[in-house]
């Protein structure tokens, strides 16, 4: 469905130091630097997949999504989505996709969302019966009924995001590019949006490429992740495999009947955290069974779970490794 080969997107950015003198000088002479937002990434995504596109701020995630959505022309490389070249922005292509961004809105600000839905119905040429069915379905799944007749500007962030999603899906896109769809939402609303995205993927077989800084989104939605940093690909594969690769150790979480000493815990593995009621140990994969057996035999354990390292830690570690690997490389090339 999505094929990206050696994609590069470079920007010429005007740079000047602060101050009046520099501002005056820039009237006569401007210096530019080339910023490599995306620097030769390659990946493929099959139809119906849900893929997390991860990286720190400024990694090139949003730029890549914008190239895929046809908003930006790539500097070089080859991009195809369902047989289309996005930069050509053929109407047939635009009818198959949608880019949803958590920070920007496509709802008509002063009008009720129902007006945006109706406008999208007309623009995407959705047959009347299909439109009614889709709106009914989205209204039920997202509990929109009371919201769509209020002006968009009077909705809360969460309510607006639900309406944004509905507006984006009126034409039943086959490919959804989602840029931080849960940003700024409270925990329960994040869960609602996540559940909805998963349901849409299962119901329509849509391909979803999602960026998010909330690892709960990624864990709940994306069996596969692509990680980029400073425009370069640093990982592409299963989420579980990524965790195993970066943090092969397991966490043994002990719920204790009574307090135990740090020294007793240290005999079993590395103590990550410890208080009167709970202790977390980090142990190598191969010794998990032995550690569990010993813990049950020697400590007052009420309950016990074995977990992977938190995804946030895994990602931080991965980004730190990427940074270390490119430490000697220059960030930008003056032109």
């Amino acid at each position, binding site marked *: 469905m999505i094929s990206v080969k050696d994609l590069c997107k470079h920007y010429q950015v005007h740079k000047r130091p602060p101050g009046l003198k520099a501002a005056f000088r820039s009237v006569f002479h401007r210096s530019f630097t080339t910023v490599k937002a995306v620097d030769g990434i390659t990946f493929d995504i099959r139809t119906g997949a849900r893929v997390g596109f991860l990286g720190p701020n400024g990694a090139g995630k949003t730029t890549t999504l914008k190239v895929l959505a046809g908003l930006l022309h790539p500097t070089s490389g080859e991009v195809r989505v369902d047989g289309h070249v996005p930069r050509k922005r053929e*109407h047939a292509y635009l009818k198959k996709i949608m880019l949803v961004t958590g920070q920007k809105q496509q709802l008509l600000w002063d009008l009720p969302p129902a007006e945006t839905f109706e406008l999208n119905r007309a623009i995407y040429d959705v047959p009347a019966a299909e439109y009614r069915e889709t709106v009914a379905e989205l209204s039920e799944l997202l509990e929109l009924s009371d919201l769509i007749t209020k002006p968009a500007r009077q909705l809360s962030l969460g309510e607006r995001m639900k309406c944004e999603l509905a507006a984006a899906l009126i034409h039943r896109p086959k490919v959804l590019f989602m840029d931080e769809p849960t940003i700024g939402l409270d925990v329960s609303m994040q869960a609602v949006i996540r559940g909805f995205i998963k349901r849409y993927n299962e119901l329509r077989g849509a391909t979803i490429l999602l960026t998010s800084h909330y690892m709960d989104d990624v864990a709940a939605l994306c069996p596969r992740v692509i990680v980029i940093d400073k425009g370069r690909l640093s990982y592409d594969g299963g989420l579980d495999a990524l965790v195993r690769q970066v943090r092969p150790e397991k966490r043994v979480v002990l719920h204790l009947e009574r307090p135990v000493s740090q020294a007793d815990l240290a005999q079993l593995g590395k103590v990550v955290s410890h208080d009167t009621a709970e202790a977390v140990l980090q142990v190598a994969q191969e010794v998990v069974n032995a550690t569990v057996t010993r813990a049950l035999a020697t400590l007052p354990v009420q309950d016990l779970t074995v977990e992977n390292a938190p995804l946030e830690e895994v990602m931080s570690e991965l980004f730190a490794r990427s940074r270390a690997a490119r430490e000697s490389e220059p960030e930008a090339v003056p032109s």
Partner: protein
Amino acid sequence: MRLPPSARALPALFKVGFSEAVAYRAEFLVWMFSTTMPLIMLALWSAVARDAPVGRFGQKEFVAYFLATFIVRQLTGSWVAWEMNYEIRHGTLARRLLRPIHPMLMYAVQNLAAQPLRLVVALPMAVLWLASVGTGQLSRDPVLWMAWAAAMLGSWLVTFFSSFAIGSLSFFMESSVKIMDVWLTLFFVFSGYLIPVELFPPAVRTLGDWLPFRYQIGLPVELMTSAHDRHAALALLARQWAWVALLLLGALWLWRRGLRRFAAYGG
């Protein structure tokens, strides 16, 4: 026969454009009353013509001319350059680009959808204009009235396409608003908005004939005030529509070239 999807979307686009114009009605009315310069010029030129006519313009002719100018300006205005400048700089143009309809068409319908509100002001002015001219002075030639209708459409298209072309310059520079300011200065001088074109010295008038500005305001106003016979009207109309074609091509060329440079920052 089934219409193309873009054409089928027009009524919905028009409806939304009108709803938005109504939603911003206070701002819209303020803007409309800020375009009352022809009424100021009317007062000024009427005072000048109190003692003796200026060219063929006595007080009555100036009243008819500047009321017609006000009506034409209300019905043929376009603000797309400012809108594009904002959307390109802030990246919000991305919203339009994601939709399977040409953004030029979307902007055009959005501008046209505000016309019914403008009629609220333009229609009473038209009644005033008729009262000042007197129905007996109106041309009885249907060809001239058809030419006027075509000139009104041409006037809007020259204004819209030139504004779209200038808006597209925002892809190449940090802001195209200053270019629009220069365009507006030339427009005020050469369009007949402040001074009837025929009062210019011959050399300036000849220059003005070859520039697009007269076809934004002057030509439809002149046709409303019976300034031309059939032959002269059709010749000027041909020039106006040549500008329409040229500006359309220029606007589309700039748009296509500029789009490659769109960075969608913040969008």
